[in-house]
């Protein structure tokens, strides 16, 4: 699962959101690292809807324009949990206290001008 997709799903954990709200929430959750562009968001939503991870929840008209809200399905939540689990296990390998470095071998020295 790519990072933007992960954060799109994660942004829907708190309940259904519309397009712009998903962009804002994904930005907040990632600490500003994931800045979803509109085209990227809707491509991801199309794929997630097709996979059954996201579903269209409601449709309203705001300022003469259709605004659709999307919610997370059970399958979507399960896929998100599985991905989080996978990443946590991958992180544990690196962050565990048993990690050993080779003593006495310095890293690359910074270049001096």
């Amino acid at each position, binding site marked *: 699962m790519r990072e933007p997709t992960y954060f799109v799903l994660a942004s829907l954990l708190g309940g259904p959101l*519309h*397009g*712009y709200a998903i*962009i804002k929430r994904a930005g907040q959750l990632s600490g500003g690292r994931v*800045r979803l*562009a*509109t*085209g*990227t*968001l*809707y*491509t991801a939503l*199309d*794929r997630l*809807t*097709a*996979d059954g991870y996201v579903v*269209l929840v409601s449709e309203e008209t*705001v*300022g003469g*324009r*259709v*605004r*659709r809200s999307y919610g997370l399905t059970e399958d979507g939540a399960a896929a998100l949990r599985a991905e989080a689990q996978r990443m946590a296990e991958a992180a544990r390998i690196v962050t565990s206290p048993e990690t050993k470095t080779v003593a006495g071998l310095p890293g690359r020295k910074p270049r001096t001008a």
Partner: protein
Amino acid sequence: VSQTQAPGKLERRARALLRAYPAEYRHGRAEEIIGTLLEAAPPGRSFPPAREAWSLIAGGRHARAIRNCRPGPKANLRLALLLGISTCLSFDFCLTLASVLGFLPGGGASWLTIAGAALGLAVTLAPWLGSRAAVTGLATSAGALTAYGELREPHGSGMPISLAQLLIVLAALAALSGGPVRLPRSWLWLPCAFPLALAAGRPLSLLHVLGPGPDLLSYLELGALVLLAVVVICWLVTDARPAFALCLAVLLGGVMIILPDFFYDDGFLIAHLEALLVLFAIVLPILLPAAWLLLRRQKTPSPRPYPGP
């Protein structure tokens, strides 16, 4: 730019970018995407940010690629075969017309040959009608007229391929026509490219920019083929089927010219083999990426991923 004008301009430019998406997608999603884009844009902007613009173009390309794979491998193969045969036939009928209308040396105008070739050109465009009966009717008439011309005219029908080959190809075109999935109208220009190239050459030859005769034809043929190949390679980004069709047209055209000599002239076996290998070498750079892209995209899920209007 005033604050009141900016949203209007931004919206207009965003709508222009949305044309990257297929029409049916825009019908269901355009207003929603525009709304999100306007909300996300910083105030006072009259152009969408570069990353937003690029994401819309990339999203449109992706949506088109998914739409083009939706009919399934069988229907897509039928469409590619239809387009390939249609393109190859239009080239042959155009050569006949060019010959009888005096573009080529040795050609002589005969109403029977002109009518046969004109009807043949109509057959090449008939698959877009979506009716097998119409294509069969037109193909039968064109085949009969060409056969009659072959018997009556002293120089034959003027076709660069044999009558037997023509009838087989016309029968294949009729058999493949019809069906639930229609040929996209955006493909219609492909079998028209050679007629248009030849039509464009007429005023050029009259103005003595290009002399009539083999030079004119070779310039037009080569120019049209190179242009077609470039456009079709660019087309691969969203649709692999026209690439298959163009390769098929080149192979079919080459094989139809080589095949009679292959059977009746044993001495040129190696030369024919070389010609076939050259043909494959020409089409492989288009065929291989097209096959890879098509197979990759067939795995993409979702027949209709976006909500309707």
